[in-house]
């Protein structure tokens, strides 16, 4: 609320500068060495030295870097909101089974023909946005089941266990589908599960960016409601919050954010859980008006950094992003656990 009076403005600015640096590093570094000056020329459309360089920058590295920003901010904000909604520090798209739900949607989309005899992707109308719709439906379904459980079960811990169970069920359904599917489809699904920022075309980004941007704005706009919800459902209600409406909005926002990201980039783990904790740790606030921007910037920084690590300079190999985020994420979780005994406090 008093963003300018406190240090938050300064810290956020620092994070923004860091993100900008990492963004350009991400474009600069890769298996093919391209000088900084040429990159600048390509990005500003002034002079083209080599067509192949232009291809690499505009069709590969730039969409990839933008994808990292989209992924990082969307996953972090959805994780933050789920931790507040479920009042649980371990909530996140991965643990609550939301990624598995989206995964099932994608599995049906990619491998459906071998199991059910028809494929959703066969219809040209569905092909472009089919992946997205399937993934969104999957994640939305899981969140709706979890939400109906919140209404019935007072204990939020039970809901978390239910999420883990749902994730396992969906994963086993996915393995059954995998068992019966054709080799080439199976391979493209396995590649999807490893997560990749590479597969996104600029055209898809044009489609995804405005949706994610609008949803993030929506998340900031309802931050006051998130702050009230920190007091617990009953207190929030007596302070004038329409609890059901708020919970529904949160579920839709998180389904959009994690559903879209999972569809295009695969199930990227640990960002959703870890980033909100880092945001709380450095901002020392529970105010969502401040936590949302922090989460967006911290998530962006971590994903850009992870993406730089996936394709180290002068090497041909590209590591799956999911492996990198786990390598970064898990130590941070352990560090937070040891540093701060009270990780159970979500607020």
């Amino acid at each position, binding site marked *: *609320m008093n963003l300018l009076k406190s240090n938050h403005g300064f810290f956020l600015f620092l994070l923004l500068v860091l993100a900008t640096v990492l963004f350009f590093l991400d474009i600069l570094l890769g298996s093919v060495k391209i000088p900084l000056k040429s990159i600048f020329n390509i990005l500003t459309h002034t002079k083209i030295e080599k067509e192949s360089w232009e291809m690499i920058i505009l069709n590969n590295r730039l969409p990839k870097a933008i994808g990292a920003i989209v992924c990082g901010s969307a996953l972090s904000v959805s994780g933050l909101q789920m931790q507040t909604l479920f009042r649980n520090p371990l909530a996140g798209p991965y643990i609550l089974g939301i990624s598995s739900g989206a995964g099932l949607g994608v599995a049906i989309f990619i491998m459906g023909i071998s199991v059910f005899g028809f494929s959703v992707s066969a219809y040209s109308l569905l092909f472009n946005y089919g992946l997205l719709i399937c993934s969104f439906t999957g994640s939305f379904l899981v969140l709706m089941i979890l939400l109906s459980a919140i209404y019935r079960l007072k204990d939020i811990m039970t809901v978390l266990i239910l999420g883990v169970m749902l994730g396992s069920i969906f994963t086993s359904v996915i393995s059954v589908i995998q068992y019966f599917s054709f080799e080439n489809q199976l391979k493209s699904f396995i590649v999807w599960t490893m997560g990749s920022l590479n597969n996104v075309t600029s055209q898809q980004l044009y489609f995804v960016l405005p949706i994610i941007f609008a949803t993030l704005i929506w998340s900031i*706009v309802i*931050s*006051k409601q998130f*702050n*009230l919800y*920190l*007091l*617990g459902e*009953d*207190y929030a*209600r*007596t*302070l*004038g*919050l*329409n609890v059901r409406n708020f919970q529904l909005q949160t579920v839709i926002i998180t389904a959009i954010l994690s559903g879209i990201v999972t569809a295009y980039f695969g199930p990227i783990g640990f960002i959703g859980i870890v980033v909100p904790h880092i945001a*709380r740790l450095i*901002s*020392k*606030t*529970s*105010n969502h*008006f401040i936590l949302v921007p922090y989460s967006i910037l911290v998530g962006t920084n971590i994903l850009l950094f992870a993406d730089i690590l996936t394709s180290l300079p002068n090497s041909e190999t590209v590591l799956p992003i999911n492996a990198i985020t786990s390598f970064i994420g898990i130590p941070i979780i352990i560090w937070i656990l040891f540093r701060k005994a*009270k990780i*159970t*406090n*979500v*607020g």
Partner: protein
Amino acid sequence: MMEVVLKIEKLEVGYKNKAILSPITVNTHTNDMICIVGRNGQGKSTIIKTLCKLLKPISGNIFIKNIHLDKITDKQFSKLVSVVLTQKININHTLVEDFIAFGRYPFTNWLGTINENDRIIISEAMNLCGISHLKGKNFNDLSDGEKQKVNIARAIAQETPVILLDEPTAHLDLANNFETFKLLKKISKECGKSVIFSTHHIESALQLADQIWIVNNSNFYSNTPSNCIQSGEIDKLFTNTSVKYNREKNLFEFD
């Protein structure tokens, strides 16, 4: 006669369509401090929860400032009734001052901006509760007694004609218990509010309350403290136990 704030007509409270108490008909006025007493599991919390709209009444009517409870939205309700519940609040990285500011949320815009007027109301609430020295502290670092006072200050900052509290003195030591009673009495008199709360400290309630609501064996009884003692309703709370109420000393003794 003071203005009627809360008007309850033939109200039946309970769970799953089963009333647990005889129908309640009672009025409260501005400046009234009302204590709900009764043994465990008799329905004190059920009454509080029904009055704060967290539980649906089974039948009967509740009017707050002459408006029927069914016609009051959650938003309007938060400007009429403030509530202090028994559940613990676990909120990290939040200063006492900012916590009390939650009481102003029903009045602020979508950004939750606290203006100069809100600030005055918050600091007055802190003064009244004697917690101004805590304002820069972290809410989670406070003791139970301090947290309770801060939460009461939050309810005062909400500026509602009615304050409902569910066992505000539970978990508090003797000194904090008396102080909370005194504070609630002060609020009812100085701020012109109806303060209604449940408690197990019957001696303090008999000394300070303007009205006592007794829930016992599915019956609801309401009267002034002296009438409650005279009519023997207080004694009835302890039939079949080894506790006896001494009317002269206002004390509970072993039989």
